[in-house]
């Protein structure tokens, strides 16, 4: 009897609660901003902070919001650490391999200040990866562990979705030139490329073969000059075979005609030589001459970008 009575009372209370709750469902939205209380993180060291995105964090200074959360979502704990790690990604941004590259990278490097961390959606990560991973692979860099898309939440209302990737293309799609074949015209630009390359060699090309999605450049035996040796030994230069990653089906004007010499830059990755830039050797080109002559005088940056390519022509 008592138990039954209790159950009835509880049921009635639940019903009343439900009825009472119903009108609340139509209430206006509440806005939630940054709270001073730390949500989680270390018990004593600095709780999460909300800071201005500094002007010398060019990766994210123009992202569309002005303040960021620290530690960020990559566990960088100081602005110095964020700046150091973010500098590697600037060249990728310049490549414009996807219209949401900055939105994605900055959601992790300089996340917005809200009362909870807001992660990029998995679909945003996958879209940016689809656009940019082939370019990174062309320079010998895999999509990094810290950006593996399974780490990010399946799409929901509380993650950052694709923002600009839905916009229609402003121009009909044109076959893009190979990344390794974009041409830098200034001596400074060439020297920057030489900084980020392991080796630089003036050479002739005997033939080109297609190997799956890559192009393979077979070096001629004669007329070879190692301008920057890097990890190459003398024996490495006997038979030079350079791989153009993902270069099988994109145009490369410099390689249409194999007569004459080429200025070639590359990296050594897991025993394989990857081509990162190729120029037709032109002894009348003053910029090229200057760059080759003063290559080792150029002040390469301490954390030089993981790859360098010519910026998109506007």
């Amino acid at each position, binding site marked *: 009897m008592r138990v039954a009575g209790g159950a009835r009372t509880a049921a009635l209370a639940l019903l009343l609660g439900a009825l009472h709750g119903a009108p609340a469902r139509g209430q206006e939205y509440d806005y939630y901003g940054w709270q001073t209380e730390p949500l989680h993180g270390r018990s004593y060291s600095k709780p999460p902070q909300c800071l201005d995105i500094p002007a010398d964090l060019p990766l994210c200074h123009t992202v569309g919001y002005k303040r960021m959360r620290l530690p960020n979502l990559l566990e960088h704990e100081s602005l110095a650490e964020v700046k150091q790690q973010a500098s590697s990604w600037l060249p990728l941004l310049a490549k414009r391999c996807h219209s949401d590259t900055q*939105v994605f990278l900055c959601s992790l490097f300089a996340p917005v200040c809200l009362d909870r961390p807001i992660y990029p959606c998995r679909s945003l990560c996958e879209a940016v990866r689809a656009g940019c991973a082939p370019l990174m692979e062309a320079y010998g860099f895999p999509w990094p562990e810290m950006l593996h898309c399974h780490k990010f939440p399946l799409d929901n209302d509380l993650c950052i979705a694709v923002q600009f990737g839905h916009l229609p293309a402003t121009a009909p799609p044109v076959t893009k030139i190979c990344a390794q074949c974009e041409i830098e015209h200034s001596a400074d630009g060439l020297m920057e490329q030489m900084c980020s390359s392991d080796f630089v060699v003036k050479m002739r090309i005997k033939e080109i073969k297609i190997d799956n999605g890559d192009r393979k450049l077979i070096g001629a035996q004669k007329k070879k000059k190692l301008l920057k040796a890097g990890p190459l030994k003398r024996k490495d230069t006997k038979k030079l075979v350079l791989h153009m990653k993902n270069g099988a089906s994109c145009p490369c004007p410099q390689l249409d005609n194999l007569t004459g010499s080429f200025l070639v830059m590359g990296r050594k990755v897991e025993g394989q030589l990857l081509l990162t830039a190729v120029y037709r050797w032109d002894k009348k080109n003053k910029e090229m001459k200057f760059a080759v002559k003063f290559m080792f005088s150029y002040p390469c940056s301490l954390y030089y970008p993981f790859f360098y390519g010519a910026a998109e022509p506007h």
Partner: protein
Amino acid sequence: MRARPQVCEALLFALALHTGVCYGIKWLALSKTPAALALNQTQHCKQLEGLVSAQVQLCRSNLELMRTIVHAAREAMKACRRAFADMRWNCSSIELAPNYLLDLERGTRESAFVYALSAATISHTIARACTSGDLPGCSCGPVPGEPPGPGNRWGGCADNLSYGLLMGAKFSDAPMKVKKTGSQANKLMRLHNSEVGRQALRASLETKCKCHGVSGSCSIRTCWKGLQELRDVAADLKTRYLSATKVVHRPMGTRKHLVPKDLDIRPVKDSELVYLQSSPDFCMKNEKVGSHGTQDRQCNKTSNGSDSCDLMCCGRGYNPYTDRVVERCHCKYHWCCYVTCRRCERTVERYVCK
């Protein structure tokens, strides 16, 4: 004849006062230090509650340390209440510092835990304060002598555990070093339990690493020695609390030592918490033994642990009641950059002990 009873009463009172003194954890009252007290002048040291004169002296000579120690007191209380939230004894009496009830005044299992946790917390907080640059007198911990492992290198800023242990012990053990306060058995017990806390903290030092390679690759990993979070240390000490050993004060050779009461063939281990007095079951309210009782405590009907209704309520039964909870729901992130939520109400059924 009449004079004699008065003398006896005075003696009994003095004895009780003596055995009851537990200055060792009175410094936790620092958690109530008002924010207005800037702690930037030595005169402020006298205004702090719960300190013995040696601690006041340490305050004057290490003024820059005091803000960290005040923070440590707050953290110790939080960690204790969190670790014991699901137990009958839930560490709520720690808020009464420095005027504790008998559950912490006497040499109980509960006070053993609090002594250990307090010692661990003050050392933990100081060590972390060195790392974060809040303390001018110290900096990062030393680079370890052992190799960091293949593909790794030492770097970053290690938690300065040795400084934390040194200064923490100086402060928190000071009351137990005072002569003629409390019995020898109590002092030995408290010093031992404090050392157990520091031992647990030492054991929580682990290697942490970060990828510092180009573009986030793991080609280079920088590693440093860091302490686990305080709640993990507290959880470890709670495990030791549950297996604590009752001891007696027994002469061995020319000195007296604490030896296990029931297994007196072996010495006390460095890693085990010890207590001199058994605790009540904390079921009923009893001020004499420092028990708040579990009446009106919330319990978990579906749990099998110590917070289950059967265990928490000591078989007395429990009452259900309904509660209206207002929560955020249907939250949505908008580019760029804010979150909007609706407010939802729902009814939850809760249970409290009879």
